[in-house]
């Protein structure tokens, strides 16, 4: 049934739709991860250090949100072009786990740390945040290099 769904998907009818979605996805994650990374670098004492982390995070929030919207628009559409392949692709499953962890971490521990400002603990949180988001990128790239054994 899933396979039939992929065959019937109008997104598979054009050769340009998938690469276009990929481009949107790249710009989306550059905005999302990049704006979060700017705050993380601030927590580590690099970059925009004149402003408080909380202020920086608030100013960048529109761009974080724009990135989130872009990846959650393009991502599921890309998934729908070949759902069975993604479902059987372990890199995709790891990516989803990392994405879930990164999002939960971002809107809980990370947000609270940013509110409190720079400290030694904040540096650890910044490193954890950067690592989590980097692992999502790794998962995404490896999807294309794995044979799901269909």
């Amino acid at each position, binding site marked *: 049934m899933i*396979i039939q769904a*992929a*065959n019937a998907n109008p997104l*598979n*009818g*054009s*050769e340009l*739709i*998938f*690469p276009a979605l*990929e*481009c949107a996805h*790249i*710009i989306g*994650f*550059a*905005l999302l*991860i*990049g*704006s979060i*990374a*700017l705050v993380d*670098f601030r927590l580590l004492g*690099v*970059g*925009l*250090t*004149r*402003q408080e982390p909380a202020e920086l995070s608030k*100013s*960048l929030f*529109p*761009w974080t949100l724009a990135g989130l919207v872009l990846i959650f628009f393009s991502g599921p559409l*890309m998934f729908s*072009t*070949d759902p*069975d*392949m*993604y479902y059987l692709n372990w890199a995709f499953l790891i990516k989803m786990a990392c994405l879930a962890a990164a999002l939960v971490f971002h809107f809980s521990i990370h947000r609270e740390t940013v509110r409190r400002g720079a400290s030694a603990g904040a540096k650890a949180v910044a490193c954890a945040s*950067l690592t989590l*988001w*980097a692992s999502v*990128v*790794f998962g*995404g*790239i*490896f*999807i*294309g*290099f794995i*044979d799901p054994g*269909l």
Partner: protein
Amino acid sequence: MLSFCLWLQSTALFTDLRGSAIVYPAILSLHMVALAFFGCMILVTDLRLLGAGLRNYPVADLLDRLRTPKWIGFALMVTFGVLLFGAKAEEYYYNIFFRAKMIILALILIHGLAFRRGVYRNGAALDASGLTGTSKLAAALSITLWVGMAMCGRGIGYIEPPLFIHASAPARAAPRGDLQPVAPTTAARKTPWRMGSSRRLFGTPTVRKGRDQRISSRTEGARINGVSECFLPSLTLRVPRAGGFLHLGGSGL
């Protein structure tokens, strides 16, 4: 240039890199992580120069404080990019998107030099006088070039390498069912390099015909356009998948 590419990819480092199923995607991932971490710094600066965001931040602050991190990010991207290029130098030499990307890279460097005095080293004056037409032009050009750069980067993976190239990535996945291609013969593998002549003989590469040719399921195999291609000896059939290619079949001629 072509003979340099051939030499480069034949070095021990890049031969090993090309042969590895893990290291190559790992370097590609690092390339993208650098894009994610540092690309946004460029976007944020440009959007500020356009007056579209972070208006409570002085332009000088963004320009001066992010200069070093941006250069570090750029150096990382170039380093990983060179590693990626070296592994498939010959293939990339023919890749139209790779060529476009290198032209955009040159334009970006020219852009940086052209607006250096007026915009990028002039933050304090821009804060005093307000944003100028020049600063907005610089920012708009910068966004266009960098987004074009990312898109060309993605496009590289969609170009089928010409059949005559001497080294391609090893098959990553076994072909399925009746699509089993004939294994390359020893003679085909040992075809000596014919430097310089290959381009004239075979012309320029073409863009893949589309994603709908990919194998989506066992039942779909026959949908591949020109199935007979699969039975040609020593043909690398590259099937586009999300984020890369699934390689079927043997190595290049």
